[in-house]
């Protein structure tokens, strides 16, 4: 089982993301955070295999949280989600240390594959 923490400031999206990820075999969501600070706290506490985080949040931006976590956890799989297709945010997330950046509007099939591969990679 790949243990995942998710973070998004949109409550409904967070809930649906949890259900969608859990529906995939081999993935389990062990924590859900509503902002960047909570995401860091949960990661420190639960030691997940992967973190899926919205790049654009209030109370410590997703990009800032990614940078901080990458510094402390070089091996953690960090995946950024964004609703904004504009390249600058994608570059910012990548530069901060995200392993991948996915667009929210697309079906997350590639995200599932990516997460499923965490244990092996």
């Amino acid at each position: 089982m790949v243990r995942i923490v998710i973070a998004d400031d949109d409550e409904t999206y967070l809930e649906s993301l949890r259900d969608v990820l859990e529906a995939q075999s081999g993935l389990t969501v062990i924590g859900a955070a509503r902002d960047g600070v909570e995401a860091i706290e949960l990661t420190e506490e639960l030691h997940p295999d992967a973190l899926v985080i919205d790049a654009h949040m209030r109370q410590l931006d997703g990009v800032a949280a990614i940078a901080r976590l990458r510094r402390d956890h070089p091996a953690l799989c960090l995946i950024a989600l964004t609703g904004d297709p504009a390249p600058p945010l994608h570059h910012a997330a990548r530069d901060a240390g995200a392993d991948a950046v996915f667009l929210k509007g697309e079906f997350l099939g590639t995200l599932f594959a990516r997460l499923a591969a965490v244990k092996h990679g």
Partner: protein
Amino acid sequence: MAKPSDSRRRQYWLRFAGVALAYVVFGKLGISLSVAEGIVTPVWAPSGLALAALLIFGRSLWPAVALGAFLTNATSGAAPLVAAAIACGNTLEPVIAAQLLRKTGFRIDLARMRDVFLLVFLGAGVSTLLSATNGIAILFLAGLDRSALASDWLLWWFGDAVGILMVTPLLLLAYVHRVGRPTRARSLEAVLLGSTLSLVTALVFLGGAWQYPYLIFPPLLWAALRFHQLGAATGSFVVGVLGTWGTVVGTLPLEASTATTRVQLIQALLVVLAISLLVVGATLEERETALRSAEQTAARLSEAQALTHIGSWEWDLTTDAVTWSDELYRIFGLPAATAVSSAEFLSHVLPEDRARIEETVQRARLDRQPFSLEYGFAVGVRTRIVHSRGRVIAVDGSDSPRLVGTAQDVSEQRQAETLRADILSIVSHELRTPLASILNLAVTLRQKGNELNEPRARRMLDNVVNEARRIDRLLSNLLEIDRLRHGVVAAMREPTDVTQLLRQVADVHRIGDRPIAIEAEPMLATVDGPKIERIVDNLLLNAVKHTPAGTPIVLRVQPKANDLLIIVDDDGPGIPQEHRTAIFEIFDRGPKAMSNASGAGIGLALVGRLAALHGGQAWVETSPSGGASMRVLIPNCVESEELDELPMAGVTAHETHENAKDSPTYRNSAHSSR
């Protein structure tokens, strides 16, 4: 009631009688003078009168002239047939003169040089030939006096011409200036000038001071310079009357054979004087017209520039002299008419744009092609975005070119464009999140539906529905806010049970384990129910969206004097101080300031707009638990009975009632409900 045609007819006959009578009076006066030779007189004011009458009132008045001429001649010793024949010439003269003048575009205000010359040549010079020739021919045929045909003809022609030059301008200008009250100072000046001129002229022509005729020139010039054509015509007339009088009564010791010749001599002087004065007057009028038209053109240009926010500029590259229009000073925010050089101009241009301007100017200098560019211009903290077009004007192909062009303030357009782009990005962001949820939930349900346990599948379906509703609400909000922005929505106020309304709204949001507590007593408020519903809906949605599941949300409604206060408290992270204003004004100020307050979006912007529609406002405080406390105040909508217990309650209630009646929103709603 007289019909218009009746009153017009009466007016015609009044004019008819006036012209005929005046003709007879002036005609008899001329004939009765001692210098007259029978009915041939050197002083013939009626021809001037007749021409003025036909020019002013139209040629349909010719019968009045004919009648006046006939009566004058018939009662002065001419046989009826002779009088009638002479009257024909007397009538044809002004009719033909008026016709000629009208055809040549003569204007009765004599404001142009050409009007003066037309009057002198066609009016006084040409048409009078006819009357004189006709008159002398008739007299010859009638066998009255055959001794001095040539001198009589000359006397007749000259008398008519002098009459036209002395009388017609005066009557025309008196008619033109009949309306319009002069100022006190000007009236006083006119009286003073009139007295001076009359006195000096009387002294010269009647008082024996004939050695000093030049004394009359200063007051005449004064008249022409200060009162233009009206002054010139009046001055000539005064001098003409007194001069002729002096000659007739013999106070002027002129060396001439007969009194008639003496009068002709003095009148020749008067004619030259009159023409000179009219020419001076016309010159002054033309100059003034040109000045006024130049001023008007400048004013219109300036007005057009102010309206379009386009200024114009000129830059002499050789001397580096820069000239700006008034509007350009306004656009740049610099005090008008301060001297500028290109270096000073560039010092205000934003540093990142300077090189581009210099480059563009250099290129334009070489290739002589028109150019356009945009740059920022800062004076102090004020920065404007300016769009400038220009081209090179080479002076006579020399190498000292000038640049001329326009500059337009496009700051507002650029800001609006930026804001529009920002709004689009926010809307697309807000739409994308629920759409992403629906897509992922639906695809997952299709692929794994059978493997999922019942409660989870159920919850996923619920969320598909919720997210679809969210998109629907988002689009409704967007349309509503657009209507509000364009001011096409009015608050339709009706007495509404607000508490009941809020309960219904809260029920919609009480999904899952979301506790929404309501603290409110039954309350009636005069508000637009559906809009209040929308306000609360968006406040609750915002709270639900930004706080963890299970944390309580409290919806409170309080009457505050006559105001309605709606509060939504949550246990979430709260809203940082710096974003508190921005979240309600996203569509006014742009979302740049609140990039970190993601998701506040258009829901709260709509809340702010709807509160404003009711004359109220929306703001954020900190809730008791440290979360956000969203507040909306709708003023003057609660008629509370409890107010009776308060001191001054009666007055307050009354005043508020009046205020509510006077407030624009109230009036609007009353209007739109009719």
